[in-house]
């Protein structure tokens, strides 16, 4: 417990440090002095103030938000499937949300971002329902590899749908603009819409630690203790749907965060979701904030998408992990 307090403190410091780097560094360097001024004496004429308030701050906040969403959905899915390889990206939840977005653009070409988010939730919900049925019929005894195979199939299936749709309806421009830009295109309006949902979902998540721990004792034990394992799974998946759908509606589907961050936190605090969940939220947010910052610094003023940077770390990470799981 003491160890956890230190880790939490460390994660918070890391977050604060990364946050300041992320808002000061980039194509335009902004000094701490300017930041202070921009907050406390905003000047419409000052270009740096404008950059900070309207471009950099929302993108940094958005990158934290999506990072924590993707990371914690990974942790939750690992908890309910008892599979350390579960992740919204690998299991198709994120690509399901992307299909939802594509459909939103087809039906309502001038859709508002907040309304598009609802379609994203719906897509994530359908993908999760598929996954839930798959695991249900495999009596949850599905092996880690089996679940991943099913998830990869599901994920490819949904990706194929959104690609077909975007070719057929000429959505490439819209979707590419949406996804490739990463956190850079996120506006204050979008953030205002998602923040209350985010806060609520994160609070619910933090309350789920004990139930997820209980699930790891096995379904029979859960029932014998008077709880309903499928009820716990259903509630947790609902939170997953909201978090994943929200994150995808902001930056598109990004994989590997949900795999890497919970794995590292599990290694640090052990298999206790009451500790894993808060650390994963801060850790995931900080990681994506850092990846987004690196993406801006590699080749300014051009941007490297943070998804690409994360995949660069994530793919070898996954391969090593699969090797370990089998070993």
């Amino acid at each position, binding site marked *: 417990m003491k160890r956890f307090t230190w880790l939490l403190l460390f994660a918070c410091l890391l977050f604060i440090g990364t946050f300041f780097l992320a808002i000061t560094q980039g194509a335009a360097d902004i000094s701490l002095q300017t930041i202070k001024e921009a907050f406390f004496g905003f000047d419409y004429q000052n270009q740096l103030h404008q950059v900070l308030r309207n471009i950099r701050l929302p993108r940094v906040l958005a990158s934290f938000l999506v990072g924590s969403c993707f990371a914690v959905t990974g942790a939750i899915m690992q908890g309910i499937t*008892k599979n350390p390889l579960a992740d919204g990206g690998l299991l198709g939840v994120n690509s399901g949300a992307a299909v939802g977005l594509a459909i939103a653009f087809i039906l309502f070409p001038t859709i508002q971002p907040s309304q598009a988010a609802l379609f994203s939730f719906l897509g994530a919900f359908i993908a999760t329902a598929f996954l839930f049925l798959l695991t249900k019929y495999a009596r949850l005894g599905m092996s880690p590899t089996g679940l991943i195979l099913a998830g990869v199939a599901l994920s490819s299936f949904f990706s194929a749908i959104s690609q077909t749709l975007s070719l057929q309806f000429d959505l490439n421009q819209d979707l590419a603009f949406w996804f490739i830009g990463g956190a850079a295109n996120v506006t204050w309006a979008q953030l205002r819409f998602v923040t209350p949902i985010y806060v609520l979902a994160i609070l619910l998540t933090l*309350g789920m630690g004990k139930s997820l*721990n*209980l699930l*790891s*004792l*096995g*379904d*029979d*034990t859960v*029932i*014998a*203790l*008077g*709880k*309903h394992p499928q009820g716990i799974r259903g509630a947790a998946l609902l939170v997953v749907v909201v978090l994943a759908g929200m994150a995808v509606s902001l930056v598109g589907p990004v994989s590997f965060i949900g795999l890497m961050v919970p794995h590292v936190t599990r290694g640090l*605090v*052990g*298999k*206790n979701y009451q*500790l894993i969940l808060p650390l994963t939220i801060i850790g995931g947010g900080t990681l994506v904030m850092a990846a987004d910052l690196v993406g801006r610094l590699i080749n300014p003023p051009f941007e490297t998408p943070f998804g690409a940077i994360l995949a660069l770390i994530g793919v070898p990470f996954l391969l090593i992990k699969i090797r370990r799981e089998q070993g």
Partner: protein
Amino acid sequence: MAKLRTVDLTVGYQKQKIVQHLTIEIPEGQIIGLIGPNGSGKSTLLKALARVLTPLSGDVFLDEKQLHQIKTKEVAGRIALLSQISDSSIGLSIREIVSYGRYPYQKGLSGLSQKDLEAIEWALQATGLEALADENIGTLSGGQKQRVWIAMALAQDTDIVILDEPTTFLDPAHQLEILLLLQQINQRYGKTIIMSIHDLNHASRFADYMYALKAGMLLTCGTPEDVLTTQWLKDLFDIEATLTTFPNSRKPLILTYDLGAES
């Protein structure tokens, strides 16, 4: 006290019937041993008795009420189940795990009450785990881990405790330790203990009453003297057993056994 009985109980998974047409009345306040070959339906029966599995037909009654009509949470306050495979990779302290036994009594978001805390301390004490209470379960030996799960079941404060092969995977000393602990719990607190067990001599020594299950059917039941006879063992396991009695009691002891002629 809680009275558990089954009437024409058939239970299984999907369409596969594992236990068929079983009618038994479990004696209260005793240690009940469930024996039978692998795949004879012992675990399935125990799960049905704990309401983890719903009967395909027939009924389980708890105090004359149909068990599957009673709420999960209420059942959890009457019957505790220790299932066979408990994942000990969880990163929790012993006290935290034992506190999970209080789940049936918790309402909404409220924390542990004074009564919960007392029950947890009592369970830790009864299983001799007080000194280790703040250790992580991962650091314990197999026998100690099993004690933790038993402590969790005790904290549940039920009249009936069901255990699925509580001594499997333990060395002889730890097996005996667990069985002595269960005997102590039965004698001191009057709890009915129902357990499946493979070691027939342990079953003979510790059980007051036994059920012998073969291919999902009840072959015979009674005291160890009734059940552990050369003939019944031949019918049950297809073994030729040489029997004697324990030096300090009249309970049967299997000296040695050979495979039956048909094998």
